[in-house]
């Protein structure tokens, strides 16, 4: 199947906006369509996406948190990316564990790293972080202690050996780390 044909097929099955992302159809699903669309892509013989590859999220600033999952058809050798946006505060998504059991660990990690609830997940215990860890490290408002503790080597000007006033790009501004 050509990438274009797969894109139209994923769009037809889910009824949701589907865009090409480097040859992979990326479908933007509403929260209440998350489970049904995932199951439909798995069960429809034309897509046959029986293999759960991974699930994670990214912090999309004012647009909220985006949960992303990639699924794949072992037999047909094609895949799709599913995406759903949830609120920064108390954002929740139905758990995919009933569709692909292998999603359990990925949802545990995404839960601790972003603070997203996965409703119906059997046990959202921390996977990587220690018990009682405060905060969600992959959110943009989470301050990087190592960045605050270390002097930026790029602050020096050419021909100087003492730090100038230049500040690193891509890091929060302001006096306090972790504020934007």
């Amino acid at each position: 199947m050509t990438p274009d044909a797969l894109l139209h097929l994923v769009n037809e099955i889910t009824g949701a906006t589907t865009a090409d992302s480097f040859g992979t159809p990326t479908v933007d699903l509403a929260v209440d369509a998350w489970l049904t669309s995932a199951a439909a892509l798995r069960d429809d013989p034309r897509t046959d996406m029986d293999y759960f590859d991974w699930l994670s999220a990214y912090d999309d600033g004012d647009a909220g948190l985006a949960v992303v999952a990639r699924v794949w058809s072992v037999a047909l050798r094609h895949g799709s990316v599913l995406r759903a946006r949830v609120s920064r505060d108390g954002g929740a998504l139905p758990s995919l564990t009933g569709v692909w059991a292998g999603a359990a660990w990925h949802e545990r990690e995404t839960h601790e790293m972003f603070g997203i609830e996965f409703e119906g997940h059997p046990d959202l215990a921390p996977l990587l972080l220690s018990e009682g860890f405060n905060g969600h490290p992959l959110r943009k408002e989470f301050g990087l202690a190592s960045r605050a503790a270390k002097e930026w080597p790029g602050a020096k000007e050419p021909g100087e050996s003492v730090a100038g006033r230049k500040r690193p790009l891509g890091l929060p501004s302001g006096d306090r780390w972790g504020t934007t």
Partner: protein
Amino acid sequence: MGHDVTLPERSRGVIALREESCTSCMVCARECPDWCIYIDSHKETEPATAEGARPRTRHVLDRFAIDYALCMYCGICIEVCPWDALFWSPEYDHPSTDVLGLTHERDTLGVWMRSVPSRPTQTG
């Protein structure tokens, strides 16, 4: 530590420095996502060489070090260097039992230039 291993010449083992090409411009240190490149330099003024000419200021490198305990071997420093002073070398045998021993200064970075392939790969 010596291993009898044959590697492709363009293996990305370590980052080497051609010191004479470096102008201490700080671009690599500023682009490095890991903050693992340390550069110190000072200015020197060279007297005018011809009548009517002005004295010239140039930057002299005092320290160039890469902390391989932090480096993630992404190669961004090599990509962004405007002066072609940084190169991939296939040498990989640079471990240490001490975390401070993984910061390699310009002398070591310069020695690794010996194994840098001479020309870029021709691509279609």
